[in-house]
């Protein structure tokens, strides 16, 4: 019997191999493209009861001696991330069929590579979620960077190549120069890299060393897109929309914020975080990033670019929570991983659906489009409200907790930052669905050749309806996610 944690990594590995093995048998491959993610959900759900009971399953992949190993372990925080990634993989796969087939035809170029890299990204997400120590996390963090690069550069156009360089340059550069250094220093100073409740730094490092580690870790995690490491994210928008959705809602950026939450709670430890000037610096950077990107988002006419900057802001909510490190802020951050994922993936799905149906990419072209695409724009509305953290959508709870956390920590400036960015969000996000439904369609708004369009294909619509439904359901029944986030909070105190 294969341990379930290992199975959660092996299944996506199978998903990465099958597109090549089944190359001559397209129908079989398509079947398995759906079956493998379903299987992964089953595996993750089978681990869920253990996580809720507070059990820690463990599995060692490889032993390196000197107390180092590549090992997996189950924690509530990891469960949140795994659940999000697994549940959205299947939606994203269905959506990919609608989008890629709709735009590039049934036999689009590089499809094996596309499916393979997609599965590899999920594999690394599972690895990150279940990593038992910093070394394992670093391993899968880098696997994710390299496996998503072919997706970012999928179109192979010059701008894709340029974005690919920025993507790799920032992510590999920051992780190698800072995260690896921090990992090493942690090992040298504390003698271990294992994640433990309450962290491993307290007692073995001085305040100055802790601050240096915090700075290195937080600015080594380029995937959180904290200023000044945020440039890769808007640039990665050249990728096909399902990839953007995967990158920006599910796997990559969530890997970043998951990493900093993990470091804050189980490596540095919240008690060390709370008193450290290093964390203070990080928090100010995060707050600055939130405001800056919210303002930039207001000025972007491209829908996907606007969503990208919104994502950067939302991610830094979590970074802020992790840096402030008061219990409620941590709980809010953990919950925000899930809530933001469902909201933001809905928005990306909608943006892609609009593009498939109408080839429109700019916000000012979308006036009145709600009459042509009622399903999509309704979902967009729901996604926007959830992303902004307003009732009656799931995003409310995480934002609420984050705000409470700031009050708890007496960080009034950060509380104001959160509220202000919500206001700015109202400005850049909500007008889009409102104008889509209530403004008149401009006579010359259509893209030549696509003036008279209807809804996107069903393969695009079903996933976005499901994810928007999830936003709604999570408001009334935050259930498992809330429970897991509560457990994360409980483990810090």
């Amino acid at each position, binding site marked *: 019997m294969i341990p379930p944690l290992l199975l959660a990594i092996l299944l996506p590995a199978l998903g990465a191999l099958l597109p090549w093995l089944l190359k001559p048998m397209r129908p079989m491959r398509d079947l398995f493209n759906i079956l493998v993610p379903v299987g992964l959900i089953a595996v993750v759900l089978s681990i869920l009861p253990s996580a809720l009971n507070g059990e820690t399953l463990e599995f060692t*992949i*490889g*032993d*390196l*001696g*000197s107390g180092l190993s*590549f090992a997996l372990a189950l924690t509530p925080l990891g469960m949140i991330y795994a659940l999000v990634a697994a549940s959205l993989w299947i939606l994203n796969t269905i959506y990919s069929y609608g989008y890629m087939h709709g735009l590039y035809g049934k036999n689009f170029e590089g499809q094996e590579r596309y499916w393979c890299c997609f599965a590899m990204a999920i594999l690394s997400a599972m690895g990150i979620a279940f990593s038992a120590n910093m*070394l394992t996390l*670093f*391993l899968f963090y*880098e*696997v994710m960077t*390299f496996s998503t690069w*072919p997706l970012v*550069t999928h179109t*192979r156009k010059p701008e*894709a*190549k340029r974005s*690919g*360089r920025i993507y*790799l340059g920032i992510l*590999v*550069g920051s992780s*190698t*120069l800072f995260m*690896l*250094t921090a990992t*090493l*220093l942690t*090992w*040298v100073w504390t003698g271990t890299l294992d994640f433990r409740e309450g962290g491993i730094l307290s007692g073995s490092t001085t305040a100055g060393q802790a601050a240096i580690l915090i700075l290195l870790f937080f600015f080594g995690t380029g995937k959180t897109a904290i200023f000044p490491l945020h440039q890769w994210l808007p640039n990665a928008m050249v990728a096909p929309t399902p990839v953007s959705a995967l990158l920006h809602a599910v796997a990559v950026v969530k890997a970043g914020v998951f990493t900093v939450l993990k470091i804050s709670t189980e490596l540095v430890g919240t008690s060390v975080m709370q008193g450290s000037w290093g964390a203070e610096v990080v928090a100010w950077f995060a707050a600055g990033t939130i405001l800056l990107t919210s303002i930039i988002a207001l000025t972007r006419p491209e829908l996907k670019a606007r969503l990208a900057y919104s994502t950067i802001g939302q991610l830094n909510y979590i970074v802020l929570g992790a840096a402030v490190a008061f219990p409620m802020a941590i709980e809010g951050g953990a919950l925000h991983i899930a809530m933001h994922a469902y909201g933001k993936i809905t928005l990306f799905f909608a943006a892609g659906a609009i593009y498939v149906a109408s080839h429109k990419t700019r916000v000012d072209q979308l006036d009145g489009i709600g009459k042509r695409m009622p399903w999509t724009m309704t979902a967009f509305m729901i996604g926007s409200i959830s992303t902004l953290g307003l009732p009656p959508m799931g995003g409310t709870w995480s934002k609420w907790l984050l705000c409470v956390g700031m009050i708890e920590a007496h960080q009034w400036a950060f509380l104001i930052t959160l509220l202000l960015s919500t206001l700015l969000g109202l400005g850049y996000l909500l007008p889009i669905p409102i104008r889509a439904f209530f403004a008149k369609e401009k006579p010359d708004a259509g893209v030549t050749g696509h003036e008279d369009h209807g809804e996107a294909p069903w393969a695009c619509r079903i996933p976005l309806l499901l994810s928007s439904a999830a936003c709604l359901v999570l408001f009334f029944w935050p259930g498992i996610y809330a429970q897991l986030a509560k457990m994360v909070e409980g483990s810090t105190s």
Partner: protein
Amino acid sequence: MNSETSMLPVLIVLIPLVGGVLAPIIGRGIFGWLLALVTTGAATFVSGTLLLYIHAQNTLTPPFAISYPLGGWPAPHGIELKIDLLSALLATLVSGMGFMVTLFSRQGVDDEIPADRRRFFWSLWLLAITGLLGILITGDAFNVYVLLEISSLTIYGLIAMGRQRNRQALTAALNYLVLGSVGASFILIAIGLLYAKTGTLNMADIHAKLLLAPVDATVLTARAFLLAGVALKMALFPLHLWMPAAYSTAPSAVAALLAATATKVGIYMGMRFIFSVFAMSGGAALSDANILIIGICCGAAIIFGSLSAARQPSLSLLLAYSSVAQIGYIVVGMTVGHIDAMTGSILHMVFHALIKGGLFLCAGILIYRLGTTRLEDLAGLGQRMPWVSGAIVVGGLGMIGIPGTAGFISKFYLLKGLILSGHPVLAGLVLIGSVLAAIYTWRFVEVAYLRPAGDTPLRNGLPFEKFLPVLLLLGASIYLGLQPGAIIDVAHDAAQQLLGGSP
């Protein structure tokens, strides 16, 4: 040591030596290749057996080393073969890589070497391996010089045989001949000075006598000559000038063998002399000034090598300059004399041999099928040769030191040692080197995967026996990246033996 294993040490050199002598006589047609395959395979088996035996004994009664008096004349008067963990590990590596590259190169040699010279090629090939293996296992300083000349002279010849494909191979061989001879004579001068000082040529004996005598100008001069000579042999910046041309113009099999083994043996000589001969009492092997100078050379090697690699027009040159940088890593680890850094250094020798050997074999496949490794001719390689270019990417990831590949493990130990021994600047350079490695690796990736395929016709298919060694070597890089426990153990014990001061 029991009677079955007692002959093994001498067999390590005897087998390839006999093979090398027989090759011109019986090595016509396919027999040369078969002979080379059998002899390198047997040498691998013998040295592997010895490695396991020594490692097992060393865990029981450390430090453990095998001493074998040649011809029954006991040391220090007779020639002594002395095999400790480091010798055995590297002998396994060298003979194993020799076997892999031999397996790889049947068609390659048919392709690049004229028929009437092939048996001489195999003869030189086996004698070069003999020389390299001999340096690893001898305990006699003059013997080191003799074996060094054997391997060097044969290697000059092997490089020159690349002239069929590229006339510049002759210039490269001549360059290497001149510089290599200068290096070898420096080493000879050093050995002569040591002999004048101590009156003995046995390394352990020299060491024992040096410990008793005060350090004077003769010893310091000997050390300076030795370091300079060895630096030339291992192509440490700025004495690397012979290397890129030699690697890129030699027959592809020779390039792979050289990259994987020859420079490693050069580094071994450095380690052996510094730590087993010159080490002062108390363990300090190098003065702070030595460490500073070598550290600067290594730092420059890492930065300059990586930056140059990113600007080269062909994959072979790119790989060669990357070797300049990687040698910087290895030497920097051994210089600081810290156990973790030394472990990292030894690991990196092994892993870099596997990875770079695999990559040069890939370059060999490109030469065999495309006739070139110029990057502009490799456009769209990802579609044209998915397996080979995939392998190059995996090897590249290993050179960057991505976790999950062997390159990460060695760098991790190296960095730990550098930090613990108080050299954060060197650690920083190693990290920057990793990022630069990502840049030159990605040059290939962009060419191979983001450019439309070129139309240079493929001359040959992909023979399985050519791809099998690549698969094994790069597969080993991944496997050892995830399950490195055993090899870390060996490297750590070897480092301990070396730093312990006894040869």
